[in-house]
């Protein structure tokens, strides 16, 4: 080989290798009483870091607005004013409540953001089961139809004294949407936001593939965080409701945190529901609703939803059988037997 052709080859190689290549950058933070991990694809570490920080700041602000336990949160103000007066709230708080009411309506109340008075009775750290009489006494306070939203004046009003909005079943999915929106405004085109198990993926990984999401086995056999299946996602959100997240077993009965708003007790018949949707807020809200509805009605709900927007579900029932909607049937890859 003469020197000239070799130099050309080397020059071409140098040119093809030059320029910044996109990498993924990841940061995690304990926020909103949970653990949040944001991964973004960027050709600059500084750009990625700044964008992630902005997303964290927005999530912290949102978390402060809807914190059920903080007396200063907007949500607490709404709850404290129940039966008294309407409360002015920020656009984010108004929107997440509005979406929660939409999910409640669509699911016929299987998801109900006014579940607060019942949730207060259960303590999954101390394994406390409430008295039946107390559950019965508080149950009439659970009714999403008694929430009044005034979009024009940005106010929320709970019509009965003692009502309590609890957005724990939907806020993390909405937060994932907010984080992705914030990252987009910072010029980030690809990434993945995981607000605990509420995940929203957008764009593609640096290797050009969709983001690969693991779905936890609801009955872990040995290894912690054992995966039952994986699913590749891009521009989609996924959320899972499971009876294994917060629970205790008393007299052979499993008491978990997904309450049936109609009874005030945990819903049975299902181990876990993973919902894939365009928006995190819907994936998060509807996974709870489908879980509460149980095998037959839950299946019908996901079929009905598909007429309004693309929604898919992977459901594992109490007997270990599974239901996978056609939209994700070819994508879902099983890891292990369960």
């Amino acid at each position, binding site marked *: 080989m003469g020197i000239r052709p070799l130099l050309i080859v080397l020059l071409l190689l140098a040119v093809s290798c030059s320029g910044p290549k996109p990498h993924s950058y990841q940061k*995690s933070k*304990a926020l909103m009483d949970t653990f949040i991990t944001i*991964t973004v694809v960027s050709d600059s570490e500084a750009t990625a870091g700044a964008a992630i920080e902005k997303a964290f700041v927005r999530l912290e602000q949102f978390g402060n607005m809807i914190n059920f336990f903080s007396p200063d949160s907007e949500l607490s103000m709404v709850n404290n004013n129940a039966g008294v007066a309407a409360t002015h709230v920020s656009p984010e708080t108004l929107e997440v409540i509005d979406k929660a009411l939409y999910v409640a309506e669509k699911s016929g109340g299987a998801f109900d953001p006014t579940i607060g008075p019942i949730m207060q009775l259960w303590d999954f750290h101390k394994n406390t089961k409430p008295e039946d009489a107390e559950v019965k006494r508080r149950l009439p306070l659970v009714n999403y139809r008694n929430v009044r939203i005034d979009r024009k004046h940005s106010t929320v009003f709970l019509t009965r004294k003692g009502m309590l909005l609890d957005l724990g079943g939907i806020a993390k999915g909405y937060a994932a949407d907010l984080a992705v929106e914030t990252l987009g405004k910072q010029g980030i085109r690809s990434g*993945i936001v995981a607000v605990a198990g509420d995940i929203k993926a957008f764009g593609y990984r640096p290797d050009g593939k969709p983001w690969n999401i693991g779905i936890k086995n609801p009955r872990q056999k040995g290894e912690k965080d054992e995966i039952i299946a994986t699913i590749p996602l891009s521009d989609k959100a996924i959320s*899972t409701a499971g009876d294994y997240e917060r629970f205790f077993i008393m007299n052979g009965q499993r008491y978990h945190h997904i309450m049936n708003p109609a009874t005030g007790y945990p819903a049975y018949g299902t181990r876990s529901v993973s919902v894939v949707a365009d928006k995190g807020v819907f994936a998060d809200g509807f996974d709870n609703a489908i879980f509460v509805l149980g095998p037959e009605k839950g299946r019908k709900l996901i079929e009905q939803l598909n007429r309004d927007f693309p929604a898919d579900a992977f459901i594992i029932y109490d007997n270990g059988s599974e239901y996978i909607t056609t939209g994700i049937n070819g994508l879902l890859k099983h890891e292990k037997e369960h």
Partner: protein
Amino acid sequence: MKKSIKGTTISDRLLLLFLITASISGIFLARDALPESGEVVIELDGQPAFTAALREDRVIRLQSSVGPVEVEIKNSRARIREAHCPNQLCVKQGWVSRGIIVCLPGKIVVFVGGRGKHKKKDLDAVTG
């Protein structure tokens, strides 16, 4: 040796130089793609506070927003041995050889075995 170098042309030498450069950069590229392992990274309120080798047994004592926290590393595993949070969930989690221990009230995060928690399985996140 000298004889063999003398017998090469400029093109051969340039090719040799290119191959050496490519090999060295390959090492760095591969290292970049692999997850960091063998490390324990402790973060307080989102900021890295301490990094230690997982193979060296030791106890790390740090101040968090809920008081002192003790992270113990032993036999290539780590745990939060002591924390002053109300529910003690982080302490109850026990030993972890690869994964994350989180204390939400204290905003303490312990990455065990590096940050690439799910990299072994090529997972980007886990739901559930």
